[in-house]
Structure formats: structure tokens, C-alpha cells
């Protein structure tokens, strides 16, 4: 057995000291642009649903209760904290907080629901156009007569009272 190299290895190890961190008994600080749980600010949200369009996990759901009221729900179960919602939001209404200890068995601890009062555009009803082609910010709200083009809106059957207005992707949610 090569004693010298073993000795060298041991010296390397002992020279390093102890590196065990006291987490979770002491909080561990995270860097400034750490991507934790997204927080939605209802005051700033304009209801464009760009976040819903660009969420890779389809965890942000949008439902139009009526012409004036849009409901935006962040479910949070499959959220991967990628931060695309925060990137594309034109009003910077979404911030990636520093919370990462989000384990819970009650979904309501994580879900966020925003009820947004939408005003009506006099010309066409209500619609928004986005900047980047690939970001698909072109979330079509609904015009009274343009429901069929509305294919980028993800809504959940389970969260609706009443019939869905457009065919949607069926997302099963329990509890």
C-alpha cells in the first residue's frame, strides 16, 4: 500500500476542516436572484395571462367568469420555479421569492388566486398583443365573437362553475 500517497490524501482531508453546515437548525441564506416560489401581486396584474401561456408546467390557470372578471389561479403543484412567468409579465407583477421550503400537504398553502376586474376595450372587446413572437404573449382574452381563436388559454374544468366556453386541456385536480 502506497503509504505516502495515503498520507497525502489524509493531509488534504484534514486540512479542509469541517464543512458541515448547521442547516436546518440555522437558516441558510440564498443568493439574491435565487428562484423560489413565485408570488403574484394582484394589484399590478392586468390579466394578460402571458404567465399562463408561458408556464411550461401549465400550472397557471385562467378563467373568464364574465366580460369583466377574470380569475387567475396559480396552482403550484407542478411548479418548477423556472421563472418564465416572472420574465414575461409586462407589469412585473410576479416576483420569484426566496422561499424554497414549500413542502406541505395542503395545496391551499401554495395556491394563489387572483380575481381581476377587466375593463372593456371599446373597439374590440378585450385583447392584448405581445412583443416577442415566441413568447406567445398574444393572449387573446375573449371578444364576444372571437371565442374560437382562443386556444392558448389554459383553463381547468375543475375550477369552473358552469360550462367551459372553449375546449380546453382537461386538467384533473383533486382536493
Amino acid at each position, binding site marked *: 500500500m502506497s503509504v505516502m500517497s495515503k498520507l497525502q*490524501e489524509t493531509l488534504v482531508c484534514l486540512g479542509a476542516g469541517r464543512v458541515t453546515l448547521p442547516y436546518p437548525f440555522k437558516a441558510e441564506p440564498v*443568493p439574491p436572484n435565487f*428562484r423560489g416560489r413565485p408570488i403574484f401581486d394582484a394589484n399590478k396584474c392586468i390579466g394578460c395571462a402571458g404567465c399562463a401561456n408561458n408556464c411550461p408546467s401549465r400550472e397557471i390557470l385562467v378563467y373568464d367568469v364574465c366580460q369583466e372578471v377574470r380569475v387567475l389561479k396559480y396552482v403550484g403543484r407542478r411548479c418548477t420555479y423556472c421563472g*418564465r412567468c416572472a420574465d414575461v409579465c409586462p407589469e412585473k407583477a410576479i416576483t420569484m421569492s426566496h422561499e424554497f421550503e414549500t413542502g406541505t400537504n395542503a395545496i391551499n398553502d401554495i395556491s394563489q388566486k387572483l380575481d381581476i376586474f377587466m375593463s372593456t376595450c371599446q373597439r374590440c372587446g378585450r385583447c392584448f398583443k405581445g412583443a416577442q413572437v415566441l413568447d406567445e404573449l398574444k393572449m387573446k382574452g375573449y371578444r364576444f365573437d372571437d371565442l374560437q381563436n382562443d386556444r392558448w388559454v389554459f383553463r381547468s374544468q375543475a375550477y369552473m362553475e358552469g360550462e367551459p366556453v372553449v375546449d380546453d386541456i382537461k386538467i384533473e385536480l383533486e382536493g
Partner: protein
Amino acid sequence: MDARERLNQLKEKFGPAIVRADMPNDSRLYVYVEPSALKAVCRYVFRDLDARYVISIGADDRPFSGNFLVFHDFAFDKDKILCSIITTAAADNPKVDTISDIIPGANWAEREISDMFGIEAVGHPYPKRLILPDGWPDGLHPLRKDMDWNHVPKDFDENREFKFGETPPGCTVVPFGPFHPTLDEPAHFRLYVEGEVVRGCEYRGFMVHRGIEKLSETVLSYNDIPMMAERICGICGCVHSVAYVQAVENAAAIKAPPRAEYMRTVMLEIERLHSHLLWVGLACHLVGFDTLFMQSWRIREPIMWMAEKITGNRKTYGLCLVGGVRWDITPEIRTELRVLLDKLEAEWIPVVAAVVKDKNIQKRTRDVGVADKQACKEMGLVGPVARAAGADIDCRRDHPYAAYDRVDFDVITHDTADVWGRVVVRAKEVFESIKIVRQCLDKMEPGPLMLDIDGELPVGRLGVSSVEAPRGESHHFVITGENNKPRRWRVRAPTYQNLQGVPGMIKDQMIADMTISLGSIDPCFSCTDRMETIDLKSGETRVWSQDELFKLVRERKA
């Protein structure tokens, strides 16, 4: 030779069999050939032109051109060309000639095409199911456009029995997996052992399919896919997301801004650093040397913290979008990164010196898991496995992407073709990565991070991209499509090829060497298993046995 000259070579030899050829730029060549000439062309390209086999891909083009497509990708490493030999298969009863008798490394790829599309590879030496479980009903092929992504087959046969092959005489069976302390992901190696010596091996994998490629064609869009791509693997996430966006950019003929390219390079090398340090520790753990395992990981931890500082997460960087990147390196982070690299280098040098001189580790790794240069060519092995055998291949130099054409680095090779060689190659590549990051930090100019993309991306174009993952070449193939999503996306992770080489590596070795041989290819089963199935485990069939594989290699028909 450039792409045009290669095309001329093919045209000279095969003339009328070549239906069409596309050369979107100097480093890409797409050659459409008649189905009857496919085998001859591939043989010529593989043997006479000495190209490296990369992967075979199937695509369902029936809604657009009326038939299926089969692509065989090759790489001319010295010429920096990625070439694809393409042919069609009829929409009803699709068949193509197999190339697995010429190129043993195409074995899995062709079986995958036949599972996923129903395109039979005529003359395949082992036409058994690779990916679909045995209870899956016949005739239902997941990647066809007429099958929904969330369709659950009703007549799944749960009672189909497990059919193993014959145990060779005098051997006992030692099952290795699907659950074993060394394997992080489920895989099943059925070892036939005589005493302590392994005489044969059967492999069955693909137990954790997630339907990634199907999802990309149906429910996700161009910019959603990088977020999924980086979750293909638990270690090399950045590689897959970069390879995907590069393939799309290649297809759409757009180029990310220079600063974005440097960012991609820096993050790729940071990923390589953390992956290699992880692996060296893991290899020591596999041979029972926990102390060096702890030390490697201790040295590796600051890299994870740095990645978290730059991108917001230790591993899932969320870095790439089509046309650019999302994160930047501020001047403060740049200074910190330089300090980190210096410290890393200073700490890694004595560890490498200690490992290289350590007889104890060498005893467990020398002449273990041998895969020589010929096996590398036949099976298409890539990465440190091939470089340890002396094959001088590295996508960063051979098919430059991102900012690799603007930095200098050496490609580390070794000549022992065993696990020891792979340890040395990976340990030394750490220094090269540090060199590359330093050069990038010096050369990065301020500028935009995202390209302004005006219109929709062109539809129906082919794009390929090869990126050097820590484990080898990760090759992505994209056909751009309508509705802001691709028509087809194929991921070939390096472990897909390297796993095919494992039975050859472990034959006539001891059981104790099985884990370290398997570990030496740095297997990433998650990368390998990214095709669709619904996770229902049921009967498994024998894959191929040791003898058959060797017969394949030795008795290949000229």
C-alpha cells in the same frame, strides 16, 4: 473536406440513388436516398468514409409528405460535418433495411424506431421490444401522429410473462437491478456468473419513460421545451437545453448574440466541472473509498453555489431560450468566479496527484471494464469512454458550437481503454474546463442576451446539434413545425450508446467489477429513457446476450 466534397463523393458512388441533398451551411449535410440504396450508402459512409455513427431517428411525416422518414445520423469528426442519410418508408406497412448488421451500435436505435413508429427494420439481428413494455398491445405506436399523448391503451396485457434467456451451463443468475444501491435509476442487468466471474449479461431498461418527445410535439411550445429539456437529466441539464435550442436555431438559420454564446459556454463548462467532480467521488464510493468521495464533493460544493448565484438554481439553470439566454454574469460575479476557479484548481491538483499515485484505487480500476478503440467505433461509444481508449473525439472541437471556436483547449485522451483511463481523463478534463471558463470571462464583450425574432420560425426545416456533455456527445434533432412547436424532437444522450457497450466491458470480469465498470461510463439512465411510454411495468423480454453481440461484431458481412 467540406460538405460539398463529401456530397460529391456520395454522388459519384451512388448517383441516381441520391434523390436530393441539402446543405444549409458548411457543417450540415442532409442526403435523401432511395430506400433500396440505404444500406449500401450507410455502409460506404461508415466503413469507407470512416464516419462515426451517431443515431438513427424515425419521424412520422404522413400528414405532410404522406410517408414515414428514417434518418441515420453520422459525424465526420475531422471535417466538422454532421451528416444525415434520409430515406422514406411507406405509410402502410413501413419497412426499411436494417443497418445493425454493419453498425452494431444501431441496434437500439432501430428497435426504438420500430417500437415507436412501427417501422420494421428488415434483417435486424434482434428485433425485440426495447422501450415498450411487453404487455403493450401490438400495433399501437406512441410517436405516430394519430396517437394522442394522453391515450391509455385499454388492452394492456398485465399477465404476459417474463421471458428470460437460457442460463449458460454452469452459471448462476445474479440480478443487478432494477433496484440496487449503486444504481440511482432503475435498470436491470441480468448477470450470468460462474463463481465470481461474469460470463454473460442481459440488459433491460427504459423503465422510467416520461413521454418527453411526445409532449414536445403536442402540448409544449418552442420556448417551453428548454425547461423540460434541462430536466431530462439530473446532472447534465444545461447540455440538453443548449443542444435543443441550438438545433432549433440551426433549423431556423438564426444565431444567438455573441454574449449569449459565451454565457452558454461558461455554464456548460461549469456543469462539466461539477459533473466530473461528482463522478470521481462516485467512482471512489463504488470501490468502497468513502473518504475521497467526501473530499471530491466538498471541493465541488462551491461550484453549485456559484451556479445558484448566476442562474438562481444549483442545477436547473433555466438558461436557454431559442435565440439567447436569460441570465448574465455581472462584474461582481465575474470576480467571484475567478477566485472560485483558482481555489478549485489549487484544491484539485493534490487530489489528482493523490489519486494517480494511489495503488489501491489503481488495483480496482486497471484492466477493468475494457472497451478498446474498435469497440468504440462499432458501438458508437462517445465521451471519456472513447477518449480513454485513445479515440480523439470531442464535439467541442469537432463540431464547434456556442463560443468554443473562440477558445483554446486540449482534448484529453488516454491509451488504456479501462476504468483507470476514464478516471484519468475525467480528472484532467477538470483543468481544461477551468481554462475555458477563464478565457470566456476574458473575452466576453457586453451586448444583448436575446435575439429579436421578428416572425414565426420557418416550418418543416431540419436541424441537428451535437453538444459535448460530460458523458459524451449529446445529439439533438429537430424538425420545426407549425403552431410554435416542433414537429419532431429527438434526444440522443451519450449514455444511450455507452450502455450498449457495457455487456462487452463486463464479460469475464468479476461481479465486484460490475459496478465500477457500469459506473465508469457515468450512466445517466434518465437521459437514456426519455421516450414515451406509460409507466406500467410488466413482462420483460430478453434483450440480447453477450455471445450474440460478439457474433454480430465478428461475423459482420462485408
